[in-house]
């Protein structure tokens, strides 16, 4: 298993470590639901060193990304970030990614479990484009700080830069813990105010400890993948392998904001299929809340009376909503907000109700 530059830190903190996409990563340091509340009420630190980070440069960098990514890269303002997907010709995604638009290059953050697939895909699709594809994953650290207090805590580690000037889904370079030109993005996977930092591997532990110390008085805590999964589900953010995969396209997942349908994007891989999904969707991704004790899990079936109308993608107890929540694909005629449906747990039914996604957002509200 691969380890990040912060592996020893996690062990020292007594984290429970698991295999996640080939990486030995902390699933929790303490009770998962406490970690969720720490991020919602204070701030949390996340090791994201397992996420793939790929720099695309060269004269055709932007044109190449526009060939493989569903969002319109050429239209992204420099220093802005957009959610996007890499789709196959059939419109189904091999991954979802963030595109960091630079002057003449693009920095791409991809899922840990798909990094190898993405790199292979990018290299195969790059024939005819003058680009260089640089996988920086193994030599860089990535740390997120998320939560309502994240800005004021991170600001103490930043010199010569006012973080309140950095807008949502924007990035910039500033001095962090003495490290000049550190990439900072106002992004995250929690629905909270938050930032992500990109550092040389050797600096990961030092910056992590500095942030932990600078936020100690305000109750900052390290947060594992268990809480991260609940935070992102509450925030209505998809996880590859759950809401989207090779059988679940971004249109029916409601990720239209990551898919440009502009005529100029006609040459993007998967475009034709995505247009057909947009014209004739067969199902919709919705939120569900359930007042019962059982937690919906991936695959839990959803019924209206005796009719099966869908299945759960992700489910969790939500400390923020104080109820169990899920995302699920349901038939279009069962997707109406407020509709009462049922979850089937081995033949035992538990009521649930269709909700709008996201369940929670501080960043967008």
């Amino acid at each position, binding site marked *: 298993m691969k380890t990040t530059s912060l592996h020893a830190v996690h062990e020292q903190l007594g984290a429970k470590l698991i295999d996640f996409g080939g990486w030995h990563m902390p699933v*929790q340091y303490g*009770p*998962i*639901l406490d970690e969720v509340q720490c991020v919602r009420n204070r701030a949390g630190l996340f090791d994201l060193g397992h996420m793939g980070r790929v720099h695309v440069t060269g004269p055709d960098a932007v044109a190449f990304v526009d060939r493989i990514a569903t969002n319109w890269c050429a239209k992204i303002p420099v220093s802005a970030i957009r959610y996007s997907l890499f789709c196959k010709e059939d419109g189904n995604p091999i991954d979802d990614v963030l595109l960091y638009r630079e002057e003449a290059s693009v920095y791409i953050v991809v899922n840990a479990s798909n990094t190898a697939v993405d790199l292979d895909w990018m290299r195969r699709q790059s024939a005819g484009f003058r680009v260089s594809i640089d996988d920086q994953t193994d030599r860089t650290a990535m740390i997120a700080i998320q939560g309502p207090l994240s800005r004021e805590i991170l600001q103490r580690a930043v010199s010569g830069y006012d973080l309140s000037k950095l807008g949502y889904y924007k990035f910039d370079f500033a001095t962090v813990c003495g490290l000049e030109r550190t990439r900072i993005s106002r992004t995250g996977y929690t629905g909270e105010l938050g930032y992500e930092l990109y550092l040389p591997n050797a600096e990961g532990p030092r910056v992590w400890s500095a942030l932990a110390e600078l936020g100690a008085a305000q109750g900052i805590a390290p947060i594992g993948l268990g809480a991260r999964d609940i935070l992102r589900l509450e925030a209505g953010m998809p996880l590859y392998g759950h809401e989207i995969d090779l059988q679940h396209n971004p249109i029916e997942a409601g990720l239209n904001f990551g898919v440009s349908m502009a005529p100029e994007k006609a040459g993007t891989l998967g475009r034709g299929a995505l247009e057909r999904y947009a014209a004739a969707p067969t199902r919709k991704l919705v939120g569900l809340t359930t007042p019962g004790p059982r*937690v919906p*899990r991936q695959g839990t079936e959803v019924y209206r009376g005796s009719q099966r109308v869908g299945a759960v993608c992700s489910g*969790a107890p939500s400390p923020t909503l104080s109820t169990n929540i899920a995302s699920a694909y349901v038939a279009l005629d069962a997707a109406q907000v407020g509709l009462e449906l049922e979850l089937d747990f081995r033949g035992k039914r538990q009521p649930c109700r269709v909700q709008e996604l996201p369940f929670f957002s501080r960043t967008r509200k």
Partner: protein
Amino acid sequence: MRPDDRKYSPTHEWVKIDGETATVGITDFAVQELSNGNTSDLVYCDLPEVGRSVKAGQTFGEIESVKAVSDLNSPVSGEVVDVNHVIEEHLEVLAKDPWKEGWMVKFKLASKSTEGLMDAAQYEKFVAQAKH
């Protein structure tokens, strides 16, 4: 050392037999594995109705943590005669006292066979191996 007045299953349930009655629960190791040492990560326990018949090795209920669901397997064959409903509302009891207060189900035994079950010493070794 765990109590030696009972038998243990490979799926980490215990059974204590008194005459015709068997009391069943789960071990401290099971609780630890399910909750990763954090009792508040346990979210739900589904126990059977009185009157249900269960064969040894069959599922009599489920226990759920934030991250996963696990089957509760019966170490013995019999009919459910009593259920500890306190657990359903107070899962922390399982961590506090899995051996006594944390009992789950009482069975009227259909057979006194304890085939495939371990005594406390054997279970101790079994758990030591499971940790690696």
